[in-house]
């Protein structure tokens, strides 16, 4: 079939459904439904709800809802995204792409925070909170002063520093002419010396034998590969320490459930809870430290477990207060709960989940 006929046929087929009369499927979307789901904010601010928020309120909301990953100053803890700084770094070998240095529109910040943050608790922030967080992030990036109040009214007036930093894909003009040439088949290069070796970096996940993870087995040496599935592993060893668990105060536990929302992005509890960024916490009270089999703990946490420590009330309370003081090098990036009553509440809440 010639290219032309193919193209014409394809056009016909495509024109079919597009030009067809509606089938009458679906039903009209109600205004309340559209309002609930169509919350996109466009670069010119279209779609913003009424509301406002100032930098200092934003600082407080950010500390509560965002700082456990992004840091108190939006500097990004561990590998979590850095949201502030990086100005002038986009040509560096290690550019720091932040809201201030990279993002072209403030609408993107508002829209994303409103729809998709905080991580694991999306769509729990009020419009005013989102205005306040956005104001704080503008301040953290040196775009506004500390007395700034962001609102629907002044939103469109904010121009981000890198607004002019983007242009549409120009590969068809720049790259395609270069790469659409008849390739060389013989004597194409003078030399083909090895200049870089991945093996030197040693960053590939490995199998126990030191080969790259997932390396196909050598069928000449298959004895290891033919072992039957391992029998159920023996029961986990009994906790190293017996822990007395006091009766749970239901009101305190309920309050703890609310506090635990700060932890939910990383820790799961309840039916079928699985490890996430942090280990699952069912039966955490009394559980030996670093004892969830398939979770990779920090070496500090492993060491504490090796000492035979278990998560009793006092250890948990101390850890929740200042994680990094209690376990050196812990992977838990959370800075800690400031209020003693929140710590007690969270412990009461967690005490209600038995091991599965």
């Amino acid at each position, binding site marked *: 079939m010639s290219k032309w006929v193919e193209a014409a046929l394809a056009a016909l087929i495509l024109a079919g459904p597009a030009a067809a009369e509606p089938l009458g499927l679906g039903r009209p979307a109600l205004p309340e439904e559209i309002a609930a789901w169509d919350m996109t904010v466009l670069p010119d601010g279209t779609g913003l709800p009424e509301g406002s928020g100032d930098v200092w309120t934003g600082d407080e909301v950010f500390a509560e809802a965002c700082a456990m990953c992004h840091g108190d100053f939006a500097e990004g803890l561990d590998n979590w995204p850095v949201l502030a700084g990086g100005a002038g770094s986009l040509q560096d070998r290690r550019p720091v792409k932040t809201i201030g240095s990279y993002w072209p529109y403030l609408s993107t910040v508002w829209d994303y925070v409103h729809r998709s943050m905080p991580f694991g608790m999306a769509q729990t922030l009020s419009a005013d909170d989102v205005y306040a967080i956005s104001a704080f992030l503008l301040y953290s990036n040196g775009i506004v002063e500390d007395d700034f109040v962001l609102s629907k009214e002044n939103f469109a007036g904010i121009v981000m520093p890198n607004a002019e930093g983007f242009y549409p894909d120009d590969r068809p003009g720049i790259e*395609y002419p270069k790469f659409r040439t008849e390739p060389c088949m013989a004597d194409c*290069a003078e030399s083909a010396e090895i200049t870089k070796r991945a093996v030197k970096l040693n960053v590939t996940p490995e199998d126990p034998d030191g080969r790259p993870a997932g390396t196909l087995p050598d069928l000449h040496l298959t004895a290891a590969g033919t072992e039957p599935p391992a029998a159920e592993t023996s029961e986990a060893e009994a906790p190293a320490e017996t822990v007395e668990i006091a009766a749970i105060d239901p009101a305190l536990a309920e309050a703890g459930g609310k506090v635990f929302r700060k932890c939910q992005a990383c820790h799961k509890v309840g039916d079928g809870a699985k490890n996430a960024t942090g280990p699952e916490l069912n039966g955490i009270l009394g559980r030996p430290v670093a004892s969830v089999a398939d979770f990779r703990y920090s070496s500090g946490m492993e060491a504490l477990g090796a000492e035979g420590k278990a998560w009793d009330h006092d250890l948990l309370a101390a850890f929740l207060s200042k994680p990094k003081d209690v376990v050196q090098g812990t992977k838990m990036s959370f800075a800690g709960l400031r209020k003693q009553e929140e710590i007690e509440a969270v412990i009461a809440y967690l005490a209600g989940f038995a091991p599965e």
Partner: protein
Amino acid sequence: MVAQRDRCLLGGLDQADDVLSAAGRSAAARRPAAASGAALAAGTARAAGPDPLITEVQPWASEFGDPVDAAPYGMPIRFEDHVVRRNVEWLTESPVSSINFTPIHALEGTITPAGCAFERHHSGAIELSKSDYRLMITGLVDRPLVFTYEDLTRFPRQSRVAFLECAANGGMEWGGAQLEGCQFTQGMIHNMEYVGVPLSALLAEAGVKPEGKWIYFEGADASSNGRSIPLEKAMDDVLIAFYANGEALRKEHGYPVRAVVPGWEGNLWVKWLRRISVYDQAVEGREETSKYTDLMPDGRARKWTWVMDAKSVITSPSPQAPIYHGRGPLVITGLAWSGNGRISRVDVSLDGGKNWQEAEIEGTPQPKALTRFRLPIQWDGSEMILQSRAMDETGYVQPTKDALREIRGLNNVYHNNGIQTWWVRASGEVENVEVG
């Protein structure tokens, strides 16, 4: 009765393993270690004695295998346990906003089994049932509509095979060879046969207003992962899919409904699709500004870099698929694809790009789908520096990594379609390297 049968079965297993282990040992003893590269040339292998796997009645030739009710939905046999998706922990802070990699080194043909097809989530794979599913079409349309899953199944539907490649596939290799194995360097890709409704049909149902120029996809998960797509592409070949490889989409691939955007970067293929809105402009959401934009050497960035350019990789031999059998006949095989259409040719070099020969292409390549290529050779047991180079029907030739770096620098992150180099050692082991 049951207990007795179990004992028999266990006894059979034990026996099988004894025999297998013995056979494995004797086989290993009979031949030189393949990894030493001293294996015998083809046709000259002689058995030292009768192979007990042949001369002795094996348990599987005498006893029962599994009954038909053993596995209502089957998993691969345990000997294939290594053929799984894998992630690279240091890449991301949280596995719920992360990526894993398809074991392409261990697969053949072109269709990726769903169970090992890579996953990318921004907020975890959610569980959304067909009965709870709703799809809304809003924005610049004559009739804002809500569809149930059942509504979607009443539209005329189409099927097509398409590759889905993450824009960041190979992103870790911009600065140089980094990860050992094509699962990690090219494995953010899968290729499935989808069945769904053309997006053009859904848009016709709602009636796009003349000022509507862009559509916007949004997922039902907490990340929502919104992306804007020009109306021309939406009307061209985008599918709203609910089947893949003959069965319902897997949860991790967007069950019950996802977007299929052939040839374009995977992030646009929004999963758990809940909203399609028509706008007169791009939304410029987080995933199309702060991410999935390509930083250039002058500090500005390309945006809307949707197309995945022609690319190929030799999947075997490769670091995770070393040559165990020694010199003699060797099948070099790999995958090629282009977001701009069909693969027209794949060349293979055994000497690091000095000389090339045309590989065999399997069947008739389909546009924007994975294509299998193979080159059977006689390996003399000496070192090779393997490369493959894809060409597509537009005449585009897969460039070297250095050619890309010359234009884009080292901070591009996305769209690394440069030629992959494997260093095959005389031992049969393979390394990820670059040559110059």
